[in-house]
C-alpha cells in the first residue's frame, strides 16, 4: 500500500495527461485543465508547510539561544508583518506593498548585482590557459568582452560582427547539442518516474 498506491497515482496521472495532449475533444481538454489547476494549486498550497518549517526552526533557535539567535527575531518579525498585512489587509494593502517595494525589491536587485563582482573574480581565476580547452574558453571570452564595448569597434570595426558570429554559430551549435542531450535525459527520466523505475524520490525505496 505504502509503495503501490503512490506508484499507481504517478502512473495514472502521468499517462492520462499524456493522452489528453493528443485528444482535442472537450472532456479531455477540460479534465486535463482541471488536473493542471489542481497540481498548481496543491504545489502553491504546500508553501504553508515551508512557512511552518521556517517559523519552527527560528523559534527553536531563539528558545535554545543558538548562535545568532537575535537575528531570528528580525526574521520572524518581518515574516509576521508580511503575513499579517497580506492575509488581513489583502495583497494590495499599503503595508504589504510598501515592504515589498522598499525592502524586497532593492534587496533582490542588490543581491543580483553582486554578479558584477563575481564575474570579475571568477574570470581572473578561471580563465587561464592551462589546457587547450581552457585556452579556447579564454579566447572566446576575451573576444566577446572586447567586441561588446565601443572600444572594440574602434580597434577593428568588424569586432562586433565577429562577436555576433561566435554567438550565432559555434555557440548555437554547442547549446543545441547540449539541449538535445538534455531532452533525451529528461524524457528518459520522466519515463522512469512514470513507470515507477525511478523511485528514489519516494525516500529512496528501491
Amino acid at each position, binding site marked *: 500500500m505504502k509503495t503501490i498506491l503512490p506508484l499507481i497515482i504517478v502512473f495514472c496521472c502521468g499517462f492520462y495527461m499524456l493522452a489528453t495532449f493528443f485528444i482535442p475533444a472537450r472532456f479531455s481538454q477540460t479534465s486535463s485543465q482541471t488536473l493542471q489547476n489542481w497540481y498548481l494549486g496543491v504545489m502553491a498550497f504546500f508553501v504553508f508547510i515551508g512557512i511552518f518549517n521556517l517559523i519552527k526552526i527560528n523559534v527553536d533557535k531563539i528558545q535554545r539561544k543558538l548562535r545568532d539567535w537575535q537575528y531570528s527575531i528580525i526574521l520572524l518579525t518581518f515574516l509576521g508583518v508580511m503575513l499579517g498585512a497580506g492575509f488581513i489587509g489583502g495583497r494590495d494593502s499599503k503595508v504589504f506593498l510598501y515592504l515589498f517595494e522598499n*525592502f524586497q*525589491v532593492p534587496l*533582490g536587485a542588490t543581491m543580483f548585482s553582486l554578479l558584477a563582482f563575481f564575474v570579475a573574480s571568477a574570470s581572473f581565476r578561471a580563465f587561464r590557459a592551462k589546457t587547450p580547452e581552457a585556452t579556447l574558453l579564454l579566447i572566446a571570452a576575451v573576444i566577446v568582452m572586447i567586441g561588446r564595448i565601443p572600444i572594440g569597434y574602434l580597434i577593428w570595426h568588424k569586432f562586433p560582427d565577429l562577436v555576433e558570429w561566435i554567438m550565432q554559430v*559555434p555557440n548555437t551549435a*554547442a547549446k*543545441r547539442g547540449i539541449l538535445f542531450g538534455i531532452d533525451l535525459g529528461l524524457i528518459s527520466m*520522466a519515463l522512469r518516474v512514470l513507470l515507477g523505475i525511478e523511485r528514489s524520490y519516494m525516500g529512496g525505496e528501491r
Partner: protein
Amino acid sequence: MINTIGIWVAALLTLAIYSFLYKDNAFYKIAENIFVGVSAGYWAVVLWYDFAWPNLFEPLLTRGQWYNIFPIFIGVLMFAPLIPKISWMIRIPLTFTMGVAMAVSITQFVQGDIFPQLQATFLPLSGVSLFKGFSNLLIILGVVFTLIYFYFSKEHKGVLGIGAKIGIWFMMVSFGASFGYTIMARVSLFIGRIYFLLHHWLGVI
C-alpha cells in the same frame, strides 16, 4: 516623508548587502534576515492568492464544485509527516504532482524543443554564400560532435574520442562566449544600484 524613509531604508539595505563582499558581518546578517522574512511572507501571500485560492478553494466555496475537495485533501496531506502513523501518505501529493508534471514536461519538450531545434538544424549548404554555407556546416557539425560527447555507451577512444574532443571544443567556445556576453548585463545591474545610491539617495548626479 514616507518616500524618503523608503529611499533611506533601501539605500542602507543595499550597502548592508555590499558589505558582505568585504566579509560577513552584522549588517549583512540583518539584511539577510529581513530579506528572508519579507520574501517568505510575500510569496506565501502571492502563492495563496494567485494559485491555491483560485485553483482549489474558490471553485469549491463559491462555485460549488464539490469534487474540488479531492485536491484540497491531497494538499492537506502535506501535514501527514507530523503524524508518524500516516506519514507515508505524504507520497500521495508528491506523486500526484510529479505524475502530472512529468507528463507535461515530456510533451512540452518534444513539441517545443526537439522538433523546432531539429528543424532549425536542417540548414542549407548549397544556394547560399560560401561564408554562410561554411557557418551552416559548422553549426551542423557542432551539434553532431557535441551530441557525440554525451554518448555514454563507449569509452571516448579512437574516432569516438576525437569526435567527443571536438564536441568539448565547441562547448568551451560557447561557454567562454556566453560568459563574456553576460558581463554587460551584470555590470548594468550594478550601475543601476550605484545610480540609485548616487542619484535618488545622495543626489550627487
